[in-house]
Each structure stands twice: as C-alpha cells, then as structure tokens.
C-alpha cells in the first residue's frame, strides 16, 4: 500500500502541467460525486431491501395468522316482505351455494324461488297437496341433504327435495331451482302414515347411508317409524325402494315437542315440554325402545323449544324457553350404555329460543329467539361468535344458513325476510381449542388431539396444538439429553486438556458435521438405527453403562500400569485418541452380547418383554430421534462452548495452577465458572436447532401426535407436522392458517432463544476483554 501512495504523489508532482483543464477537472469531480452518491443510494437500497425482506417474513407469517384471531362480523343486508306474500306462513327456507337463488316453502302449498338479495320471485311451484291441507308438523333432514318434510292434519306426510342446477352459456351462470319428491310412488308423492286421518303432531326426517327415514308422532300418541331402504341392483343398476314400517310406543308421561333422527338410523331423540329429551335406540327397529330420559333444562317448567342436530348428527343442540343453549351427545358410561350427556353450553339468549340452524359443512350453528336476536356459535371451540339483532322484538320463526355459511336467512313472525351477511371464516379456533382439553364428538371425555382431516365430510377437525408442542419438546429433550453431556464434556476436554496438534484436526472434524444435511441423519436414523436398536435393544443400555465404566477402568490401568511401563511414551493430551479403540471394543462387545442378555433377562425378546410389562414400543421412537438429533446438535453446542472455554483468559488459569490447584480443580472452579454463560448460550442455540429440526423427526418418528414422554414411543413435532400437512391444505382455510401459526410459533421461539443466547455471549465477550 505504501508504495502505491508514494507513486501517486510522484506522478502528481512531476506532471502538474499535464493536468486537464479546470473545467474538465470540475466535470470529472462532479461525475465522481455522482458516482459516489449513486453507489451510496444503491448500497443503501439493497441493504434496506434485505432488512425489509427479512422483516417481511415475520410480517407475512403474522398477516396469515391474523384472520384466526378475528371473531368475524355480520350485517343485516336486506329485509323485505316475504316473497309470495305474508299471508302464508313459511315452512322452510333453503338456498344454493352461490346465494343467487333461494326457495321458500309456505303452508299454502307453494314453493317460491326468489333472488335472496332483492326478493324478486323467479318461479313458483305448486306442491302436490290437497287444497284443504293444513300443515301440522314440519321437519328437516341435515341441511346438506336438502330434504325436508311436512306433516298434514290428515295424517299424511310429504317429503320434498330441493334441487338447484347451474348451467353455463355465453360465459354466464344460469341458476335454476326445482322440487323433487324422492319417495314418489304410484299413488303420488303423499305418504299416508296414519291411514285413519289422525293428524301428524311431530315429524322427523333424515337421509343416511341406508336411505331416507321418517319418524312420525300422531295426535293419538302413535309413534311410527318408516324406513325407505334404497337398494341398487347390481345387474340392472335400477334402484328399488323397500318400505319398512315399525310402530313404537310414544312415552305416556310426556308430550313431545320436537323429534330428531341421526344419519346412521340408530338414534331417535324426542324433546318434551318438561325440559327432557328421550333417547330411543332404533338400531333394531323391530324392538326399538327408550333407553334414557334426560333432563336437559334446569327446571321442569322450562320446555325444550328448539332442538337440532349438528352436521353429522352426532351432537345435539338444545335451546330452551329460558334462552339457554347447550350441546349434548351420547356418551358411553361405565356400564357401556350410551347416555345423553351435556358437553358444553353457549352464551344464553334473553328470550326463549325459537329456532336453531346448523351449518352445512361445519360444526357451527345459529340460534334465534323470540325477541329477534340471532347468535352464531361454534361447537368445538365453544365460541359464540356473533350476536345480531335481526328483527326488533319480533320472534324469528325460521332460520337457515346458506350452504357456505356466509349468510343467514331469517323469517320473523310478521313474515318478513331478513338476509344477514355472515363473515366468520375461522370459528374453529379459540385459545381453548388450541391449547385446552376439548371434548370432541364421540369421545367420553376431553382430550388433547391433533387430527386435521379425515375421509368423511362430517368429520370434526381436531386442532389441539398440545400434542405437537409436547412432541417438539419431547424430541428436543431427548436430543439434548444425548447431546449436552457429550458436547460439553468434549468441549472442555478439547479446549483445555487436548494437545494442540490433536485439537487442530479434531475441532474441524466435529464442526464439519454441522454442515451435514439432516436428511442424511434422518434417513440413517429411520432406516438403519431404528431397526438396529429394535433388534439390539439391550446393547443400548449396556453401552450406556459399560462404556463410561470401561473408560474409568482403562484410565486407571493406563495411568497406573501401562503408561509407566511404556516409559510415558504417549504424552498427556492424547487420551481421546487412546480411548477410541477401547470404546470401539466395548461397543462391539455390547452388541455381541446383546442377544445373550435378551435370553438371560428378557426371555429371549426384549421388545416383547417391554410390551408385556405394558410399555408401548414403536420402532421409530424418541430414543432413535434423541440419538440422531443429538448427533445433529452436538457440533453446534460443542463449537460454541469450546470457544467459550478456550477463550477464558490464560492468566486466570495460570494463577489458579500457580496456587497449587490441579488442572481439573482449575477447570471446575475457575474455567467453567467463567465460561458458563458461553456454555449456557451454546445449549440455548442447540436447543433452538433441535426444536426446529424437521427432516430427522419426519423420518425417524412415526409422526403420531401422542401426548407422552415415553422414550419408546414416537411423536409428531410442529415442524414435521408442517412438512406433512402443508401440501394438502386449502389455501386460506383454517387448517392452512393453523400451520402458519405453527410456523410463527417456531419462528418466534427460536428467534427469542437465539437472541437471548447471543446477548449472553456478547456480555461474556465484554467480560473477557475487561479481565
């Protein structure tokens, strides 16, 4: 550098006259100034862009998670007089997926198709009912089946199915609606149930896998069960309907207000005016019987005013005249009998519940009361998401969800229609649903479960993050259990006791393992280590015991016997190299003796023995993950703690040694104490790495989301869960956002841990430099 500058000065001095003119120099200076500024702008732009990009990761993850935390909103979009006139009463309302067409059934035998936004009628269909028919009962199957039924004063029942068809032409969507009668026979669509003109008092209809079923309670107390079993002939492909009819005893001690049947055709529930629900087992209809009567209301002067199944007809939502809303389902008790049990309750209304509307595709529902208030609830998360005053102090008689749960159709007692926009994309999520015990449908108690998808539509997603978090911590715990002793002890030895020559090869060798792709560790763990451990289980434990013991024994032999006799041929600082054959030998011995140990102590098969003792053993388990992931974090911990120990100022150790302490005493009392913050930060960083590691846990565990710390069972971690499930989620859906939440949790967790470690390390560095 010196030569260059002296050269410059020489040329400038000697050739002053050859300089360009003043204006040219000014131009050049300006040009250089421009370049200087533009370089600065360019560099600053790139620098800030990078900082921005890194900040963007956090912001973007957060923005994808945000919608989960919002509770949704609703708004009465329009209200109008019932299409087709308010003289007739609305029996039932439905709409198509796109909310472009809706249908209203009236008790004066019409089905009126109309546009829900404006109320304009597009078409009216007359239902094939007798002119003087009086509707005395109405019922609806699951909304997604689009099947409903009306019962008449004459004892007849009509089953109706709405149909919406879409056609595309000229780039436009045309929607048309129609009415079908799925149980139409030669005698027409009307089914005469009573056969003697007794009025229908209560009605339940359902379509399950076995076809359509009806339950009819007649005014004289008869309870009829009709099953239309559809069978499709394999030969001709024709569908034939077989009608089966059974008579049940109506409970004498109660007057029924509402009946429901489930889709499996096994359960008939009837609510009465004394606040009770009767459970009939109709799985064998010929000898159907009442199994249980349950008081679902707090007092017996409170009656069940509304009762509806949620999607899948597993959960029962009960609304009472006291405004309470509760969820019930059948739970097996100790005697293995299914009984109705209250699972949870929701925000109460101030007025009696009038009607309940379940969603088409989720476990949500809306309740409406006599004062015109509608509330939207979600069962799994036990949330009441929205409260909307739809009609002022007028009772809401009919309530229905749009198929995508983005609108509610409410009809009040004056036959006014209210269309309510509902924006409620992620009702499944609440703090309780993510982190607490949730009592899921079909289970006998609350549990922490992660099960995000299933083959059936009526599946209740189970989004508890507890199993995943426990799995993450379990994997990290066993990995650290394996890594910390090896890495820190190794670091202490290499930094303080090892000969410099050996250290210069050992340190890079161990550090290079940090760069080893974890997919390779995972593959070895899953395909080689897991089967090996399974068939040589005793050797794992014998190695754990015998290797340290043999090291001590050999150390004693070496220092007392071998080394003196060799004339101290090998100097101190090479102990690690001398021990390698010892460890290899003992390891080999443990594997060799392993089958014999199994024969001596575990009747020949340790795995079987474990199972007999009651310990579950998975081939890919926490032990395997602990070893493999421990292996992955050893270099991280080793490298940082080695630096911390090595950089302890030499005068400290020399002072200690000069005062007569042995090297080991110096190590324990002086060096370790000084370096402990560094070692702590090494452990933190290692922990951060273990928490976020994906490939090893993905490949070396069974990825089953269990909640336990059994070393012989697998786990599913947050990161592996993302890798497994991210590809199959719907963009923008709840599941998708929960996976983003998992990523955000990992991000924040590791960021905080690493920052803490970094701060500790910086403080340590300052301390060293001041010593």
């Amino acid at each position, binding site marked *: 550098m010196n030569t260059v500058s002296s050269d410059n000065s020489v040329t400038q001095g000697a050739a002053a006259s050859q300089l360009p003119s003043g204006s040219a120099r000014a131009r050049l200076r300006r040009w250089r100034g421009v370049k200087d500024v533009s370089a600065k702008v360019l560099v600053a732009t790139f620098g800030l862009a990078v900082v921005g990009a890194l900040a963007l990761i956090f912001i973007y993850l957060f923005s994808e998670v945000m919608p989960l935390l919002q509770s949704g909103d609703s708004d009465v979009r329009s209200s109008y007089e019932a299409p087709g006139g308010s003289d007739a009463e609305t029996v039932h309302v439905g709409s198509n997926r796109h909310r472009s067409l809706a249908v209203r059934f009236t008790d004066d035998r019409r089905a009126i198709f109309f546009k829900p936004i404006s109320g304009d009628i597009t078409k009216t269909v007359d239902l094939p009912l007798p002119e003087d028919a009086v509707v005395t009962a109405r019922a609806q199957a699951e909304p997604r089946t689009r099947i409903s039924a009306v019962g008449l004063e004459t004892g007849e029942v009509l089953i109706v199915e709405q149909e919406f068809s879409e056609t595309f032409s000229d780039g436009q969507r045309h929607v048309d609606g129609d009415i079908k009668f799925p149980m139409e026979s030669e005698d027409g669509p009307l089914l005469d149930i009573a056969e003697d003109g007794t009025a229908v008092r209560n009605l339940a209809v359902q379509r399950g896998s076995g076809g359509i079923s009806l339950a009819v309670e007649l005014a004289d107390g008869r309870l009829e069960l009709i099953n239309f079993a559809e069978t499709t002939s394999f030969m001709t492909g024709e569908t034939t309907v077989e009608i089966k009819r059974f008579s049940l005893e109506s409970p004498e001690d109660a007057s029924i207000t509402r009946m429901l049947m489930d889709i499996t055709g096994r359960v008939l529930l009837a609510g009465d005016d004394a606040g009770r629900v009767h459970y009939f087992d109709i799985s064998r209809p010929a000898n159907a019987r009442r199994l249980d009567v349950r008081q679902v209301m707090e007092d017996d002067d409170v009656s069940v005013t509304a009762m509806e199944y949620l999607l899948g007809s597993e959960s029962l939502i009960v609304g009472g005249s006291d405004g309470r809303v509760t969820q019930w389902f059948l739970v097996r008790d100790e005697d293995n009998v299914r009984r109705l049990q209250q699972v949870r309750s929701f925000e109460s209304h101030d007025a009696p519940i009038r009607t309940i509307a379940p969603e088409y595709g989720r476990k949500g529902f809306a309740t409406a009361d006599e004062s015109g208030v509608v509330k939207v609830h979600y069962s799994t998360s036990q949330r009441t998401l929205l409260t909307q005053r739809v009609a002022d102090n007028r009772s809401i008689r009919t309530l229905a969800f749009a198929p995508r749960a983005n609108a509610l159709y409410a009809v009040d007692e004056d036959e006014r229609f209210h269309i309510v926009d509902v924006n409620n994309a992620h009702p499944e999520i609440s703090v309780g649903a993510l982190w607490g015990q949730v009592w899921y449908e079909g289970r006998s108690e609350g549990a922490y479960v992660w099960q995000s998808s299933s083959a059936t539509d009526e599946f209740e997603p189970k989004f508890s993050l507890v199993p995943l978090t426990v799995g993450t911590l379990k994997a990290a715990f066993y990995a650290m259990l394996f890594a910390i002793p090896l890495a820190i002890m190794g670091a202490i030895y290499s930094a303080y006791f090892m000969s410099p020559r050996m250290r210069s090869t050992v340190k890079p060798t161990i550090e290079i393992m940090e760069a080893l792709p974890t997919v390779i560790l995972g593959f070895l763990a899953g395909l080689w280590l897991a089967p090996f451990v399974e068939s040589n289980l005793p050797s794992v434990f014998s190695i754990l015991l015998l290797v340290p013991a043999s090291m001590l024994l050999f150390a004693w032999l070496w220092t007392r016997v071998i080394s003196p006799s060799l004339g101290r041929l090998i100097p101190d600082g090479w102990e690690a190299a001398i021990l390698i054959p010892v460890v290899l030998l003992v390891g080999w011995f443990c594997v060799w003796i392993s089958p014999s140990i199994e024969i001596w102590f575990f009747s020949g098969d340790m795995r079987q023995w474990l199972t007999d003792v009651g310990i579950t053993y998975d081939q890919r388990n926490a032990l395997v993950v602990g070893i493999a992931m421990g292996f992955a974090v050893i270099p991280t911990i080793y490298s940082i703690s080695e630096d911390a120990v090595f950089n302890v100022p030499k005068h400290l150790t020399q002072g200690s040694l000069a005062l007569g302490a042995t090297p080991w005493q110096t190590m324990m009392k002086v060096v370790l104490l000084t370096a402990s913050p560094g070692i702590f930060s090494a452990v933190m960083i290692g922990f951060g790495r273990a928490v976020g590691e994906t490939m090893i846990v993905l490949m070396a565990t069974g990825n089953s989301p269990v909640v336990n710390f059994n070393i012989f069972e697998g786990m599913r971690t947050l990161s592996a869960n993302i890798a497994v499930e991210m590809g199959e989620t719907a*963009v923008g859906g709840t599941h998708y956002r929960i996976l983003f939440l998992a990523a955000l949790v990992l991000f924040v967790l590791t*960021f905080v841990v690493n920052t803490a470690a970094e701060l500790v390390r910086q403080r340590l560095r300052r301390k060293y430099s001041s010593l």
Partner: protein
Amino acid sequence: MNNWFRNGTPWVWLNAGAVSISLIMVAGLLGMIAVNGLGHFWPKAVAEFDYTEGEDAEVQRVLGEVSRSETMTAAAMREAGYVVPEDEEIVTRHLIKRGNRDATGRDFVWYIGENASEFRYPENAMVLERLTWGDLIGYLKDYREDGEVVAEGDEARERFTERLQETSASVQEIGRIERFEIGAVNYEIEQIRLQQRALDLNPQLSDEERAEQAALLDEQRAEFQERYDALEDRRNELRREVRRFAITAELMDGREQEVVLADIVRATWPNDMSVPAKAREYVSVFWDFVSGFPREANTEGGILPAIFGTVLMVIIMSIVVTPFGVLAAIYLREYAKQGPLVRTIRISVNNLAGVPSIVFGVFGLGFFIYFLGGAIDRTFYPEALPAPTYGSPAIIWASLTLALLTLPVVIVSTEEGLSRIPSTIRQGSLALGATKAETLWRIVVPLAAPAMMTGLILAVARAAGEVAPLMLVGVVKLAPNLPIDGSFPFLHLDRAFMHLGFHIYDVGFQSPNVEAGRPLVYATALILVLLIIVLNVTAVTIRNHLREKYKSESD
C-alpha cells in the same frame, strides 16, 4: 485410588471419552455411508442354498445375493413367525435379494441361517438388470430370435451378450426419442394450445384477425402433429426390431421365464467374474447411476435429474443471494450509522440463520407461490388458468426461498471479512482523495472478496443439503422434464424439479419397495455428503488462509 479420584484424572479421561465417542460417531457415519454407497455398485456374488423350515417341510432352492446378515435371538424370530430349530437360542438371519419380483412377488426375504445348507456359488448364476420389475436372478437356458431357439448353454451366453450390446444402443435411442424429442414436440403443441386460448380471450381482436391468426396456429399445429407421428413411427419401428430377441432363464424354483432383450439393461455372471472385470463393471454401473434417469418409482436407474436440479437451484440461488447479501453487508458495515439500531439489525440477521428452515418454506409457499406467483399468473398467463404457471411449486421459488434462508450466512461472512480489513487501508485511500465509493470498490471489496466467496460457498453448502423447505416450494419426486431443455425459452423457471436430498427422503421413506431402494439411497447420500463436505472444506480453507493473511498484515 482415592487420591487418584481426588486429583481429577478420571474425570479428565471421561471428558476425553466424550471426544472419542463424538469422533467415532462422525467417522462411523461417514464410513457407513461410504461403504454402503460405494459397495452398492460392486457386483455381488450370487449364493445358492437349500432351505428347509422345520423338519418335514419341503426343501427349497434359494438363489440370490446376500444383502445383509443379523444375529437375533431365536425367541424373537419365533415371535415373528419363523420356524427355528428347538435347540437354537441365537440364530443368524440373512436378507436375501432373490430378485424376480414379477415371478415371486417378494424380492427381499429373510432366511434363517440355521435352516439353510452351505452356500454354493454356481458360476452360471446370472443377474439381469431389467427396465421393469427389478433384477432377475437365475440361470440362462437358451437364446431365441423371433421365437426360435437359436442357441443353448454356453453358446447362448455368448450370442446373448453380443446381441445385447447391439440392442442396448437401440433401446437408448428409443429412450431418447421418448424423453426428449416427443417431449419437445408435446411442449410445442401445448404452447400452441395456450396461444389459441389467449386468442380466444383477447377482446381487442376483430373476427377476421382472430380467424387469420387461428389459421396460422392450425398450420403450425398440423406441422408439429406430423413431426410427432413421424417420431412415433420411428420409435415403434425400433421397438419392433429389438423385441425380436429374447432369452429364457430358469428361476430358483425351476420355473422358466422369457425375457425380451429390449427390457434388459445389463447382464452379469458375478460368480464368474475376475476382479478387473468386476472393477470395469463397477465403473460402468456407477456412471449409469450418475448419468441416468430414474426408473421404477426412483428405486432404480440413475439420479441425473436430481443432481441437475440441485445444481441448477443452487446456481440460481447464488445469483440472487450474492448481490443482496454482499451489498447488505457493505451497507451495514460501511454506510449505516453504527448505533443501537444497526446492532439490533445485525443480531436479528445473525439469528435468522437459526430460524428453522421449514419456516422459510412456509413463507415461500404462502408469499412466493400463492401471492407472487398467483399475481404473475393472473397478469401474464391468463390463458393457462386455472392451471397455474408460476402459482405452483417451481425452481425459481425454491431458489428464492433458499436465497432468503442463506442471506444471513453471506451477510455474516462478508461483514466479518470487511471488519478484518485494517482501517488504515481505508484511511490511506480516502486521504489520497478517493471518494468513499471508489475506496470501497477499488480497495475494500477486492480485499474482502475471499470472505464473500467463503460466505457464498457456505451458503451453497447449506442450500444443497436443505430439504424441508423445498418440499413445500418446488421439489417433486419425479419431474418429467428437466428445467433446462431445447425448447424456447430454454430455462423453464416455472418447472418443478428433483433434488438429491429429497430423493433420499422419497426413496427411503415414500417408496413402496424400501429394501430395493436402500442401496440407491446410500449412494445418493454419499454423493450429497461428498458435495457438501468438499464445499465446506473449501470454505474453511479460504477462511483460515484469509485469517492468517490479515493476522500477519495487522501485526
């Protein structure tokens, strides 16, 4: 003894033991990958033995390669359903690769050593590597042409090997036509379809213009269709030619099976090979592995697309990460005002290196693919919708995601390099009247270049081994087309690609026949490990060299 414990010697030894164990694990892991990965290509001897399960069971002739052996307790084997002689307590079991997946159903079977006779190594045992159904292991019976037996016994072997060399050239030609030429024509036809659709969607065209352009497209389509037909004819002709030749092999259970030469990749008689012959075979098999395309759900054939995809992705990533990383480091070190804010940014950048890689994958999927890619598709490729062009996992998004992931590595390394340059050098340059920019570009950056190089190499090493984020943003188990080919625009950034690391995961854990894929997984792992170790050692060497240099200069 007590004194010995008190002065701490045993504890020092225990600590030394920790180092020994770590070293053994490192060496053992690398050794295991090397032995298994390299050993796979060495022609294995084919063993023949008689096997009886239980005393009065039928004697069964077994022929196959010994994959590996284990010592087990008899109880565990009985538990697993094997018949083990009563008096045995500890047994050895061998995993035999029997091949013949099409004939016997299971190509890997465990046999209890105690139930087997001595192993024999018949010289006429033949191993055929086939295009489908894995290996065939048996004895050559005869060689046929057009269905007629032409030769038997030793002569058959001679004629067969001769003919195989000829047919393999034709088979390669067929593969080339199918993979590249027909693929290219199909790509063009697809492009014409998209142009046609763009035409239909364009509202500004008058009817005449539209008809005119459509006619042009039809013409082109007809042309390509013609080329397609010609290629197909050629392929069918070649196929007919190579299907004329066949051999018959006797399998271990005495059954005979005919194999067409077109289905045979290579034929060896491993028990009858000298060591040099085996070495020649080894090189040839290894070359096929590195330069071939995968077959049979990736459990056979080569890994060229995976190597290609890994390298291309890393190159694109380097092109992105280098300017950003280096300029950001220069900004932080040279331009930004050093204060608490820059210190915070520096710590944050540093810590991003510790954020789990899967988080970057999630970000890449959401932001790059769905947000950016979706926007690009809506703006530039409306004709292809709803099929995504850039709105699906692609090599460009994978590269960008990994660029983000490795930014901290480059920044930290470059900053370290910049901070090691003595300030006297900068001051000297400034004192001579150079502007800050001139000082930077002429003096500082060249001096820090090796540090940047180190950062880039470390970034590449990290990127090459990363799998978890790639699973979300661009890697597939089998990509039909390479991201670079002969069709315009030659580099297809919107294509998904194959990757060495993901190949390991996929073949090892997702494939239906894990046992058959296992050697390939080891071999792939070996190549990946070698790549990464070489890169890392280079980086470390450069860094150490650099440190020494500045140490001496600053003294």
